[in-house]
C-alpha cells in the first residue's frame, strides 16, 4: 500500500468511512421500547448472561436524543403507534430500527382492530426478529445484522 510504506512502522492509515463505521457499529445505543412481554427478553439481553455490552450496545438510552437504535419489543397498538413514530422522529440521524418479536414484526397473534399489523406500517424497519418472544441471542444476532449494515454505510450517504 502506497502511503503506509512511506510512513514506516508505527503509523496506521484509514479512511474516514472505515473509522466512522467502526465507531458507529461498536456504539449502537438502543432506545428500548418494551411494549409487552418481549421487553423481559430485552432486559435479559442487557444482563450479564447474554451481555450485549460485548457489542457496545449496553447503554440503554431513555431519551431519543442519545439513541441510535429503536428497539421495538412487543405488541404495538395503533394508539401507541403515534408515540413510537414520534420517538423515532425525534432520534438524531443516522438511526436504525429493530422489530423484536412476532407482534412487532407482523402483529403476531393479535389479528384485531387495535393492533398494528407490524410496525413497518409506520416505521422503516431494518431487521425483523422472529419468535414469541425471541431469545436474547436472536436479538443480539439482529444487532450484528445492524452492525453489518453500518459497515456498508458511507459518510457521504448522509450528506
Amino acid at each position, binding site marked *: 500500500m502506497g502511503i503506509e510504506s512511506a510512513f514506516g512502522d508505527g503509523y496506521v492509515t484509514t479512511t*474516514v468511512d472505515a473509522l466512522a463505521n467502526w465507531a458507529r457499529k461498536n456504539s449502537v445505543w438502543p432506545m428500548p421500547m418494551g411494549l409487552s412481554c418481549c421487553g423481559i427478553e430485552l432486559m435479559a439481553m442487557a444482563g450479564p448472561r447474554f451481555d450485549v455490552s460485548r457489542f457496545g450496545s449496553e447503554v440503554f438510552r431513555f431519551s431519543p436524543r442519545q439513541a441510535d437504535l429503536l428497539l421495538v419489543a412487543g405488541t404495538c397498538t395503533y394508539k401507541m403507534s403515534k*408515540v413510537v413514530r*414520534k420517538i423515532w422522529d*425525534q432520534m438524531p440521524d443516522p438511526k436504525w430500527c429493530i422489530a423484536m418479536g412476532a407482534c412487532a414484526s407482523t402483529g403476531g397473534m393479535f389479528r384485531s382492530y387495535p393492533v398494528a399489523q407490524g410496525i413497518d406500517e409506520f416505521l422503516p424497519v431494518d431487521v425483523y426478529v422472529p419468535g414469541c418472544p425471541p431469545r436474547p441471542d436472536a436479538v443480539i444476532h439482529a444487532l450484528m445484522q445492524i452492525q453489518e449494515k453500518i459497515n456498508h454505510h458511507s459518510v457521504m450517504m448522509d450528506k
Partner: protein
Amino acid sequence: MFEQYIPVLFLIVLACAFGVGSLVVTGFIGPKRPNKIKNSAYESGMEPIGTAHERYSVKYYMVAMLFVVFDVEILFMYPWAVQFRMLGLFAFIEMLIFIGLLFAGYYYIIKKGVLEWE
C-alpha cells in the same frame, strides 16, 4: 521539580483534545436533518402541554417549609434519644420545651388556616 509532572500535563492535553476533537469531527461528518417534530420537546412521545415555566400554588411552599421545620425537630431528637440516659432529666425538660414551642407554632398555623386547601 515539575518535570516529573509533564506526563500528567500531556495526559490532560490528550484527554481534552480527544473530547473537543470528537465533538468537532462529529459536527462535520454527522448528518443533520432538523425538522419540527425532532426539535419539539421530548415528552415520552406524547404531545407537550403548556410551557416548562409552570407556576405552582404557593400552598406547596408553605407545606414544604413546615416539613423542613418538623424534619429538623426529628433530627434534633435523634442524638438526644441516643444519649438520653447520660443527659438525664435536664435534657428531657429542654426537649419538652423545644417540642412545646414547635407545637405552639403548629397550633398557630392551623388557626391561621395554612393547612386548609380550599
